[in-house]
């Protein structure tokens, strides 16, 4: 993702601290960390904070944003969703074959080509990267924890009502009635993925970590 705006705050740094400790415990070569959670809950920001934190410990990581892997490009998505109805909103909107291929390229130290959305132009660029020497792949996105290959799955709590303000603040998307419906739908889909999670964070209640 190009030109994403992130604001790292204390809660992100504290959460990153917890994750990096957990990571030290579990680390193995070519580790995949999945960060799921609601829209605007701070997935990208937490990814960034974790990456910077573990970098200081000599662990190199690459951040992949699931939103780069939508089947329908950003400029056409609204019309596509309206046409196909609210039920079309969900994990199936993503190109999981491509996501799995990139995860596979990472695991095998290969060169990999993936889509990369520029949030200013809303155009989909293409990014070629080499995964050789990268220790950890951090995949973040609404449904990132669906990824079978992930060694550690993190979920950021916060219902979409609580993130409304953050959403407006991040200016990523404008708020309309249809947008609200989409958020409600995404909220339901995301909540249905709350099984098989290793670590939960609730950013609203300062730092509340617990296992299921």
């Amino acid at each position, binding site marked *: *993702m*190009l*030109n994403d*705006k*992130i604001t*790292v705050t204390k809660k992100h740094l504290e959460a990153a601290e917890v994750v990096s400790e957990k990571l030290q415990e579990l680390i193995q070569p070519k580790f995949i960390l999945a960060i799921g959670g609601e829209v605007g809950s701070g997935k990208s920001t937490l990814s*960034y904070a974790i*990456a*910077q934190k573990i*970098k200081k410990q000599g662990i*190199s*990581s*690459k*951040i992949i944003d699931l939103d780069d892997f939508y089947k329908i490009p950003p400029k056409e998505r609204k019309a596509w969703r309206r046409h196909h109805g609210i039920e079309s909103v969900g994990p199936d909107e993503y190109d999981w074959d491509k996501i799995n291929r990139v995860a596979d390229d990472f695991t095998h130290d290969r060169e990999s080509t993936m889509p*990369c959305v*520029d949030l*200013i*132009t809303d*155009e989909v*660029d*293409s*990014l*070629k*990267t*080499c995964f050789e*020497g*990268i220790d950890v792949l951090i995949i973040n996105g609404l449904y990132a924890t669906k990824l079978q290959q992930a060694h550690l799955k993190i979920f950021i709590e916060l219902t979409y009502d609580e993130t409304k303000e953050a959403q407006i603040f991040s200016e990523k998307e404008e708020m309309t009635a249809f947008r609200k419906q989409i958020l409600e739908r995404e909220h339901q889909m995301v909540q249905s993925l709350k099984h098989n999670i290793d670590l939960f964070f609730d950013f609203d209640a300062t730092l509340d970590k617990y296992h299921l």
Partner: protein
Amino acid sequence: MLGDVLLIAEKHQKAGEVIVEKILSIRKPKMIVAISGESGSGKSELAHVIAKSLRKHGIMAKPLHIDNYYRIHPLERTEWRKQHGIQNVVGPNEYDWDTFLRNISEFRAGAFSTGPCVDLVTEQIDQLTTDYSGIDMLIIDGLYAIKTPDIDLRVFIELTYHETKKAQVVRGKEPQNEYRMQVLEKEHQEVQALKPLADLLVGMDYEVRPASPQPKL
């Protein structure tokens, strides 16, 4: 550039609006705007807000950061500069202008373009391919961006590293030490030498003014 943290403040928004007005007044197809200024002066922030604001006017603008085009890999740069002497090598020649100019001409031609894209998290250089057919405008930012030939509007931010030291620390982009200070001083000299090329100046308080005052009659 991937993993860059921008600290966008109200001053960037305000200056951005003034510059956007200017851009709209001289608008032409496949226009290129260049923003120069020292490290931490807010080039990327300004490029970001300008591109975003232009979108509201129906103009698709893409920011392009010249820092992606360093010849020497990020992880080797400090060593390389020390070895060759900061005084000798820090300057415009540290950049791969051939590749940069090729990418710019691909933008003008509305073609597919592949160029370097630094990931500040991994400190690796990825390759980014962009389809420029739908892009109307390029906002290039970099220390020496306004040196680029055939630019339609050149913006120069006057803030020097002396004033932005604090911003640099907050941003945590680069370590602060003696070596870094020497680099900043050399860059300062090189960047300030480009000031006469500017069409618009962004002052110490981010106020925007034309570079050459209207001649008195």
